[in-house]
């Protein structure tokens, strides 16, 4: 039955050793009225073949990035993932291991996490990084809570050009924790930094911001200094291949979404949050951290460290409640970065930049207009020609094999009619030209 190896005879032997007559007897500690009198109302078991067929049938009801050319980004991106990534992370010793509590049994995963921390720290230009967070949204929320603790303030200033969902998660967390969230307005595709005013625990900006535009991190840093607050940057790991890293601007915390590094879009999950900060904040940061040390025989060895920050030791005084994180995706990101290398990652970023520009050129040719003139990276806000409306345009594009951009009006009243289109390195010339032509035809 299922994956249970027991034979009748073994069951009998085990029951005898325990000293009961039946498995039912083992449930005697559960008061009779609490025991289920009927089977669960669930569909009957499927054999493996029937299961996979059933799932394939369900899956075939979906528009995917393979069935359609994807020009949608907004936090989840269709980036190239080399085949070697899945081949390596699927090795059973990684896949089926638990959090490495016993270092002797888990040196491989521990070293891989140490390497992930190193890669994230390098990319962000920060001193240290942790072993991962659930996703960018919760990483950002936890960064804000950390800032509140460190700064002794309960007010966060967050750019309105941070991903709307991340801001929503932040508000949800803040609500519970009695933290106030103030939104920083935007103009011309960039955040308007607060000029002094009330002291804040943190200023939070995303770069590139949700509109795809490059923010001015120097200005953000100045604003954070002026308000005595931490600077928290939500960064894109691929854009970081080209942009001066937030660490260079003096950011206190850099968080972000690692999905674009070797992870499947997966309908938005699991995702890979990362969290980097300054060394002096190591004891305040959430999440697991692996450190290098030596063993009894003087060999290099890895182990989880700064454990006294964590919930299983510190309980209600812990810096966070996070326990299970996104280790396997952190591994995927590491393999991905290792196999691309700095040059490969730069090429990916440059191809995104180029393709997004080619896409804008093609769309403006058919009458779309850019909403802002600021430099952008991989996504750009445009106003499509015609009066179809973004949602309807997207609906019709779906029928022609295109997954259209994000409807900015759905999250920003002030951007009604704007379309956030995205082109990664995976988009081809054909697809870009095809999109422009479809837009032309549909809006004519």
């Amino acid at each position, binding site marked *: 039955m299922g*994956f*249970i190896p027991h034979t009748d005879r*073994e069951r009998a*032997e*085990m029951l005898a050793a325990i000293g009961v007559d039946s498995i039912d007897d*083992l*449930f005697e500690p559960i008061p009779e009225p*609490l025991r*289920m009198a009927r*089977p*669960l109302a*669930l*569909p009957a*078991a*499927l054999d493996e073949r029937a*299961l996979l067929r059933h*799932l394939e049938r369900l*899956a075939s*009801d979906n528009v995917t*990035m393979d069935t359609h050319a994807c020009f949608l980004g907004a*936090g989840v991106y269709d980036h*190239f993932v080399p085949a*070697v990534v899945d081949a390596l992370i699927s*090795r*059973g*010793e*990684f896949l089926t291991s*638990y959090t490495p*509590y016993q270092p*002797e049994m*888990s*040196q*491989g995963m521990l*070293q*891989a996490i140490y390497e992930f921390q190193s890669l994230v720290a*390098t990319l962000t230009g920060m001193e240290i990084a942790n072993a991962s967070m659930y996703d960018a949204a*919760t990483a950002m929320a936890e960064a804000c*809570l950390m800032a509140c603790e460190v700064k002794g303030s309960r007010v966060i200033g967050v750019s309105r050009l941070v991903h709307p969902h991340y801001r929503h998660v932040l508000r*949800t967390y803040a609500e*519970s924790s009695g933290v106030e969230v103030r939104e920083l307005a935007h103009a011309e595709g960039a955040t308007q930094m607060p000029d002094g005013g009330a002291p804040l625990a943190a200023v939070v900006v995303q770069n590139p911001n949700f509109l795809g535009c*490059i923010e001015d991190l120097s200005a953000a840093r100045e604003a954070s200094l002026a308000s005595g607050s931490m600077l928290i940057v939500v960064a894109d790991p691929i854009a970081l291949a080209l942009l001066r890293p937030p660490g260079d601007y003096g950011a206190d915390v850099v968080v972000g979404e690692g999905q674009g590094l070797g992870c499947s879009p997966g*309908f*938005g*999950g699991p*995702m890979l949050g990362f969290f980097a900060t300054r060394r002096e904040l*190591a004891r305040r940061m959430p999440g697991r951290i692996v*450190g290098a040390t030596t063993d009894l025989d003087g060999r290099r*060895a*890895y182990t989880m460290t700064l454990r006294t920050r964590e919930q299983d030791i*510190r*309980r209600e005084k812990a810096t966070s*409640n996070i326990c299970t994180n996104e280790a396997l995706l952190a591994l995927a990101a*590491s393999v991905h970065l*290792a196999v691309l*290398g700095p040059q490969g*990652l*730069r090429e990916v970023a440059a191809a995104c930049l180029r393709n997004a*520009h080619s896409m804008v050129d093609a769309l403006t040719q058919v009458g779309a207009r850019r909403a802002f003139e600021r*430099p952008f990276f991989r996504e750009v806000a445009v106003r499509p020609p015609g009066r179809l409306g973004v949602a309807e345009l997207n*609906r019709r594009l779906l029928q022609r094999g295109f997954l259209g951009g994000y409807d900015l009006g759905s999250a920003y009243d002030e951007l009604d009619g704007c379309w956030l289109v995205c082109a990664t390195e995976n988009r081809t010339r054909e697809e870009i030209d095809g999109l422009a032509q479809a837009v032309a035809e549909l809006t004519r």
Partner: protein
Amino acid sequence: MSDSSAPQATGHRSEPVLIEKSVRGRRGVRPPSPQGPLGPLEEMLPGVELRTDLPLPELSELDVVRHYTALSRRNYGIDAGFYPLGSCTMKYNPRANECAARSPGWARLHPLTPPAAVQGALQLMYELNCFLAEVAGMAAATIQPAAGAHGETLSLMMVRAYHRSRGDMERTSVLIPDSAHGTNPASAALCGFQVRPITSDADGLSDTRHLRELVGADTAAVMLTNPNTLGLFESRIAEICAVVHDAGGLVYCDGANMNALLGVARPGEMGFDVMHFNLHKTFGTPHGGGGPGCGAIAVGSVLEPFLPVPVVVRRGNALYDLCHDRPLSVGRVHSFYGAFLNAVRGYAYIRSLGPDGLREVARHAVLNANYVRARIGGAYEIPHNRLCMHEVVASASRLKRRFGVRAMDVSKRLMDHGFHPPTNYFPLIVSEALMIEPTETESKQTIDAFCDALIAIAAEAETDPEVVRGAPYSTPVRRPDETAAVKRLDVRWGSSGQ
């Protein structure tokens, strides 16, 4: 190849870190080329400060394959052997479900695709929510939390929102047994509650008297784990829930231990108002060295209005949709819908086992744990030696007292027998705890071999205590110095630590 001190063809060879293998100018995989002429980047990024230095490792594809193959060979998983970590439910992770989750029809879905174009995905989430609600005996469920602790967080946010919606603003404390997992108090603190510990009674259960004392008008919720972390069923649970409810509080079930109860008993029927599942425990999604998980929660009808958005719904026209119009919703705790691909795995698990299969899971998980208890009861103390559920907590305190051999020593010595150790030093209320959860997918042979090893170690503790205290001897490294790790804080390459 750098470790000539212990050269081994297929063994414990140490592996340099990536950056040490880097060679300037070496290339791995080539990404897709840009679709257009690539001039100077500055032209496309006018006025933007560019990066001058990107010191990532430079490796060939083969270098990378060998590196991670080598690391994997220095790692232990369920596939390598028995992994009886208590509270972690390290059961077999079915490969068919891995296959399913990798289908491009799931893996290559964009979460912001219009709902009409992702009906399969929405249907799967909808059905899984129904399945989880049925297993819980509750009204509704959501897969949005990314892990168990996240499910706790979300649940407590909902508890807070519930009380506030009733104008009840004074419920500032959450009661949690001293045996609880650390995430429980940490989650309560994260949500701004004050934590009050409930003591455990002589039977290892929550002390009802103490609970009655603590419960009051400031009680937002009580968080209980059932079966609790001693592997014992909280048999007075109905009474406890009634007490809390009478006082206006809600009761939360930490469902990490649901492997004991599948199809046998339902938290909703015990009186719980909300619970989390760990799909990465109970429903066999792989733990991946620390994640990803899925901490789906189920809720009773009082809490349903507070579920996070979006909620997957089925419209009259039989179309599935995402509903954001939920005025009482607490908001959102994940960028999108949670760990969807783990929902696929969990769905596959439930469909492949069906109602009877799930029930057998619980029955055999409990059988295996009691069998361990019966077998090792002579060699180790079992603080609460009566029928347990899916796990059993033994103690090495006798060994410690008599031979100076601690639970950690026993654990390290188990490695030399080829086993992953049990959970140590948890729950905190048992001294020298060895928390053993065999799971239902382990055979009698494996469990016997493990118990034999435990018994042999207890004997060895008597005859050769230093040997046990010096273990392990056969692992790639031995007892890394954790104090030095904290002092050096070498948490990345290129840092002062190195």
